[in-house]
Every structure is written in C-alpha cells, then in structure tokens.
C-alpha cells in the first residue's frame, strides 16, 4: 500500500492538520503532505487524507506562498518531476538490493532450492500424477494460505481497533526475534556449508547474537536510518527465501497472483481490512503502527529556524517496521506506503527548512517481489534472461504504481501492477523468449 508521509517538524506549533500545500501549485502531487502526528518521539504522522483539503482555506499564507511567485510553471513541473523521480529511486534501490540478495543466494546456496517438505499452510502436495490434480492442489493450497493471511490481518485490525497495543507489539517482537535469530542462524549455516568454511560455535554465537541484538534495537527502537533499512532488507530477503524454499512450484505462482488480488481488495474496498486500519489510524492521529514498513525517510532540517526537540527525536526514530511472525501472517502484505515530497520552496519557509519526506513501502511487498524474482531464478533452468526480465518488469510496475500514487494521492496497493507484469514476463520469457534467444545464440546471430 502506498500512502503519503507527512513531515514531522516545524508545523507542530500550528495545528496538526496543516501541512497541505496549496492546490494551486501546478503539480498537485507536490502539494500533498500527510497529517501530522503528535506522538512523542514517534515523529511525523504519515497519513494524508483527501479530507485535509479544507486546510487550504484555513491557511491563507500557505495558500499564497505555495506557488512561489516568479517561478515559471514549467520549472515547477520539472522540479516536481525530479522530486518524484528521486523518490522512485529511493524505492528502486532497496527493492533491487533485496532481489540481488535473494537471487545471489538462490544461485549459490543449494539449500534454498531443495525440496524439503512444505509449510503447514500448503498441505497439499504437488507430486501428483496428473496435471489437473496438481493444479487443483495448488489452488487449494492458495486458498488455505490466503485465508490464513486474511484471518491474520483481520485479527490484527481488530486488535488495533480495540487498542490492544501491548499484544500487537509483543507479537511483532516475537516474530522479529525469530527472523533475526533463528532464520539468520540457518542462513549462515547454509552459506558456510556451501563455501565449506568452518566456524566454531563461540564465534557463531557471538556473530548471531550481535547481528540479532543490533537488529532488534534498530528496528524496534532507535538507530541509524541506514542500518535500519539494511536490516529490513535482510529480513525481507530471509523471509522471501523461506517462501521460495517451502512453497511448491505451482502453488507459489498461484499464491502470488491471489495475493495481488487480495491486496487490491484489502486496500481499496471500503470494508477492506487494510483500509480500515489506515482509517482508524487516521482517526486517532497515530502513525499506523509501524510494522512491516520500510521507510526511506530522509528527514533533514538544514538551518532550521526553530529547533524542535520532538522533531529531532523523530529524526532518529525510524518507523519501526517489524516483521510479523512469518508463519502466522504476512501482516500487511502490501503495505507500501509512499510518501510524497513537497516541492522545494515549501510555502512560507525558507528553502533551508525543507524536509525531505521519504517514501515508505511495506515489507510484504519487498518479500513478494523477491519471491517472484527468486522463483524465476530458481526454476528458470539456469537462465538469467528470465530473472532479468522479471526484475525489469517489477521495477516498471513499481514506477507505474508510484505514478498512480501521485495522481490519486491516497493509499494504494503496490503489489498488483508489479506482480502482474512480473508474472506475464516470467511466463512469456520462459516459454517464448528463451527458445528464441537460445536458438539465436547457438547460431551466433545477433538481433
């Protein structure tokens, strides 16, 4: 799900519903900022709503200042395009990194491509004699998996609605503990086995302990943003590897398709669980509890006129994206929230006080993108073309989704477009392009 993120910052002095730039700016996307949260230390609130448009009238200064006088409209447009491009790249980089980690692991460590049983969420086997039976089994697996996810999400929404924050936090901490310690230990073990490197237990204990402890601190508490982002990428990659290993072939593809549909429904339908979550958080003016969210928030204030201690605190606190228990639920599978940056020349402030709003993407999206590319790498019969085609397709899907976000300016699902493109390109490249390119290569022809 893609949404906007507001900046924490100088506006906390004003009422919390400000921070909307005037609509008269030629590029509407530049005008949008989210609401502001006033959580101590939680920093900015993230949710922008369409309803904040009435703020325009309340704030004549902003209204007037937003279109900076003397700046030609073409320049504004170009600046906004550049700003938007920067935020697209801020998402491209982590998604690419996650995919690279997953593909590199798949291609080198054999453990993740061996079949060693299945998850209990996909109980039907695919070792059947007939194609029809196999297809039926994969559809049943998908139904079970998706229902588990739906139930978990609804459970989460219910917990959130009834303010059982402790329970949610405890759940999230348990799942990130498992990811950071257990899965890392297994991963490290397999990598060491592949490269035939010996490591004694004390060293292993020290390494895993340090890695896991720093990860927990960075993700759930405070830490440098880059470190937190790196940990999120790593846990998404670990999760994706688990899925690639334990989901049977056809089930994986059907699940990918089904989860995109679920994402679409959950985020856009009025009664969808994710949408209700967003709206509840907005009503309470809280940041959507920071689970499973990768944030590239570069919030910086240069030469700021009034230093605000709470916003300083917010600068360091990353959005605690936490991994939900991997087996229980994918949490918000598509919780990508994309935050729109303001134009530089933000109304009323000098240029230096500008804050970069970051972009947020849900970890579930990272995971499923990586699952798609990883599966393409694992099953593409040693073919790199399929992997690359899926990679480009997913990036283009992400780009399109961000474009739609700029147009619609509300929470959007990030999975459907990318996964659709990815699936189309996987199947067509594997079946059509690969024979063509192989035949060309064998005759040494060049197109």
């Amino acid at each position, binding site marked *: 799900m893609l949404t906007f993120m507001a900046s924490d910052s100088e506006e906390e002095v004003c009422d919390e519903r400000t921070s909307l730039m005037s609509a008269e700016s030629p590029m509407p996307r530049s005008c949008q900022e989210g609401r502001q949260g006033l959580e101590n230390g939680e920093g900015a609130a993230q949710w922008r709503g369409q309803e904040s448009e009435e703020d325009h009238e309340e704030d004549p200064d902003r209204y007037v200042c937003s279109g900076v006088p003397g700046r030609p409209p073409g320049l504004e447009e170009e600046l906004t395009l550049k700003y938007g491009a920067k935020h*697209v790249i801020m998402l491209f980089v982590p998604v690419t990194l996650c995919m690279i980690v997953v593909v590199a692991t798949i291609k080198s460590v054999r453990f993740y491509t061996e079949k060693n049983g299945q998850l209990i969420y996909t109980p039907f086997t695919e070792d059947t004699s007939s194609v029809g039976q196999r297809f039926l089994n994969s559809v049943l697996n998908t139904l079970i998996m998706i229902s588990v996810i739906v139930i978990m999400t609804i459970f989460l929404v219910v917990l959130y609605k009834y303010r059982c924050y402790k329970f949610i936090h405890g759940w999230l901490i348990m799942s990130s503990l498992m990811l950071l310690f257990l899965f890392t230990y297994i991963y490290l073990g397999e990598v060491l086995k592949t490269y035939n490197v010996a490591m004694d237990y004390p060293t292993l204990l020290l390494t895993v302990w340090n890695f896991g402890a720093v990860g927990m601190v960075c993700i759930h508490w405070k830490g440098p943003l880059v470190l937190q982002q790196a940990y999120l990428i790593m846990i998404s990659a670990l999760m994706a590897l688990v899925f690639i290993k334990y989901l049977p072939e056809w089930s994986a593809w059907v699940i990918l398709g089904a989860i995109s549909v679920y994402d679409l429904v959950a985020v856009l339908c009025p009664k969808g669980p994710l949408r209700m979550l967003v709206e509840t958080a907005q009503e309470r003016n809280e940041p959507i509890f920071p689970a499973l969210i990768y944030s590239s928030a570069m919030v910086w204030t240069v030469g700021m006129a009034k230093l605000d201690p709470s916003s300083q605190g917010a600068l360091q606190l990353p959005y605690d994206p936490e991994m939900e228990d991997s087996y229980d639920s994918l949490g918000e599978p598509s919780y990508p929230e994309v935050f729109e940056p303001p134009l530089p020349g933000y109304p009323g402030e000098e240029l230096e006080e500008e804050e970069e709003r970051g972009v947020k993407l849900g970890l579930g999206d990272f995971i499923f993108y990586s699952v798609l590319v990883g599966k393409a790498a694992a099953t593409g019969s040693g073919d790199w*073309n399929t992997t690359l085609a899926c990679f*480009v397709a997913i990036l*283009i899907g992400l780009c399109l989704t961000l474009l739609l976000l700029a147009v619609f300016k509300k929470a959007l699902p990030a999975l459907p477009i990318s996964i659709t493109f990815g699936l189309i390109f996987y199947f067509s490249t594997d079946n059509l392009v690969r024979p063509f390119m192989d035949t060309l290569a064998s*005759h*040494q022809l*060049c*197109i």
Partner: protein
Amino acid sequence: MTAAVFFGCAFVAFGPALALYIFTIATEPLRIIFLIIGAFFWLVSLLLSSFIWFMAATLTDNKDEPRQRDLLIFGVLISVLIQEMFRFAYYKLLKKSSEGLKSINPVSGLGFGIMSGVFSFVNTLSDSLGPGTVGIHGDPPQFFLNSAFMTLVIILLHMFWGIVFFDGCEKKKWYTLLVVLLTHLLVSALTFISPYSGLNLVLAYIILVLTGIWAFFVSGGSCRSLKLCLLCQDKDSLLFNQRSR
C-alpha cells in the same frame, strides 16, 4: 573458462556502458527511470518478436535445418523491425512526458542497448565461469571474446542510433529513421555470414565509428568543440590563441 575469462569478457562487453551509466545517468534519478523504461520497451519488443517467431515455427512445424535457419533469419529481421518501432513508441512517450528531451537522448539508446547486450550475452558469460574448454570440437577458441566484442558494438550502436533517431524525429527528418533501420538490419545481417571469420566484427565496428561520428555531429558537436575538448582548453583560450596569431 576461468574467472579471468569471465571478468575480462564482462568488462569488455559492459565496461563502456557501465562507465556511461556511472558518469551520466547515475547522478540523475529521472534518467535512471528513463533507462529502465527504455529497457522495458526493448524487452516488450523482444517478447513480441519471439512470439511471432514462435508462431511461425510451430505453424510450419518443419524440422529440417535449412528451413529452421530461414525461419530464424525471418525472426531476426522481424525483431529488428519491431525494435525500431518500439524505439519510435518510446520517443513518443518521452515526448509526452518531458520537455527536456535533449538531455536524455543518450539514455534512451543506452537503455535499449544495455538490455539487448545483457540478454544476448549474460547466459554465455555465466557459462564461461564454469569448467570447460572452448573449441574442443573444432570451434574457434575465441568464442567468448568474439561474443563480448559483438555485445559491446551492439550496445554502443544502440546508443548512437537512439541519439540519431530521436534527433530525426524531433526535426521531422524521416529519412533518418529509415537509415537507422537499414543500418540495424545491416548489422544483424552481417552476423549471418560465418561468425568464425571475424569479418562481421570488423564491419560492425566500421559501422559503429560512422554512426558515432554522425551522432556526434547531430547532437551539436563540431570539429572545434572536439579540439577544445581534446586540448583541455576552454573557448576563450582557443579564441585568444587564434587572435594572437
């Protein structure tokens, strides 16, 4: 068939493209996006042409070698045509979305070129890392190096074609598009002659140099600016030298 061959061929084929990426594209996020969009367009064109080839192959369903080769040649020619069509479509998209087209001219061609080069070479490259001996059955042992150079020439050619093509579209010189198409067909057709002779490589490089010169003049270069660049002087000093003579 070692790491040396792998890295050597990888850098031969992709080195210039990587350098171009680092120095001109990586700094501007918008250009990176246009690069990826260009790669996507090339991918779609490849998909379409593979589909057509696949349909033709299954429909004729003839297993003998010459017929297969004819079909392949047909596939290659159709692919070139579709690639140029998609280049035009890409131009239309860029035109609609951005006014500053001049600065992204090389990006478009590079997007096409990188994707094309990667698709044709990366499988060969990954094979070169593994064990084996090239040419054990009488094939030329320089297979990897030949492929690497061919990939390099294709990538650079795509970039030059992109520049020339876009300029032709901007100035409505439609004959330019035709020339680009014909050159592309020529380069692909050159690969039909025996790949073992190296002649096709030399001819491709000659075409590369010619196209490069054309692209240079089209994008506003001139002998004078080249001299300025090579002598590391700025305009004033050159003028000064001339005046003092």
